[in-house]
């Protein structure tokens, strides 16, 4: 499923941006494809980092870094591009979407030890609950195994972010523990739930490669009892 290709005619982009500036497509799924970040994406990033809902649900260090450390500087693009400890890919939906629907990344990549952390951010509320985040997480997990040689991927989720927890479970992640009151949303402390998946489990998911419909009922009910 993981493939590397230049954007083709079946990767519609409604903009008139030249192909070279649209980034390279790294992986294609049935609903979304993942492409490399481009300088033009900074405009989207600028809007996303100011969205309080995204900040509360994800608390992304990536977004915080762009906003606070880099002060939304264009130099952030180059810094991301040359950062060998993370892979940042933009999520594009196939039809009817004029803008990217989010970002997915592997970060704190430890190539020798074979593990990394996953963060999937669906930024457009209309794109939520459509399976886009699930598929984006799946595609980048395959990429992590196939291209980066990862054998384990980890994710942290705020205890109130049931949507993300269910997305991870749908991709075969298992709840591995809870970091008690490790997250702060500006008002109070929340538990962080740790999820993990091993290479064999990713391969097992790949064999199934079941396409989840948006209308599928959510799995589980948020955090499992510890």
């Amino acid at each position: 499923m993981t493939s590397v290709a230049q954007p083709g005619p079946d990767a519609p982009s409604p903009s008139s941006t030249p192909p070279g500036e649209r980034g390279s497509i790294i992986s294609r799924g049935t609903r979304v494809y993942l492409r490399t970040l481009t300088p033009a994406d900074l405009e989207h990033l600028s809007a996303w980092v100011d969205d309080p809902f995204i900040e509360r649900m994800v608390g992304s260090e990536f977004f915080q870094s762009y906003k606070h450390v880099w002060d939304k500087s264009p130099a952030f693009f180059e810094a991301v591009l040359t950062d060998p400890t993370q892979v940042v890919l933009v999520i594009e939906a196939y039809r009817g979407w004029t803008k990217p629907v989010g970002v997915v990344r592997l970060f704190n990549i430890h190539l020798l030890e074979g593990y990394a952390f996953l963060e999937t951010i669906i930024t457009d509320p209309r794109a939520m609950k459509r399976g886009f985040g699930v598929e984006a997480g799946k595609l980048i997990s395959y990429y992590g195994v196939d291209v980066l040689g990862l054998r384990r991927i980890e994710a942290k989720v705020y205890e109130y972010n049931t949507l993300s927890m269910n997305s991870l479970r749908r991709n075969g992640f298992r709840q591995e523990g809870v970091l008690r009151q490790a997250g702060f949303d500006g008002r109070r402390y929340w538990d962080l739930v740790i999820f993990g998946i091993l290479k064999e489990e990713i391969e097992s998911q790949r064999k199934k490669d079941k396409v989840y419909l948006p209308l599928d009922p959510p799995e589980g009910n948020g955090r499992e009892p510890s």
Partner: protein
Amino acid sequence: MGVVEIEVRDQETPSDAAQALESLTRLRFAGPLTSVTAPSLRAQVRTAVRDGQTRMLIDLQAVTALDAAGIAALLEARRVLEAQPSGTLVLRANGVVCRALKDTGTFAAFALWNGPGM
């Protein structure tokens, strides 16, 4: 009192190391070595190994960017080559490459050669 002899070599005479490097198959890579271009490096290494070339020097002097996918490709090259009898991999790296290897803790995983004789 001992005498310290300093061997002054003719610049035209290649060093032992440089002579040893002569026996390696050379693969030169220029531009960004990233998720977009790393598959090409993987393919070239695999082709070379299939052709029986298992002692390789990958010249990265002209590489302008190196990301996780690029480093993963280099690690795979090392694994593939070192799995062969007498297989070896030497990298010729520039500052960009060295920094990326250092940032990812993979610096010590590679044999590096930055001297003359190339």
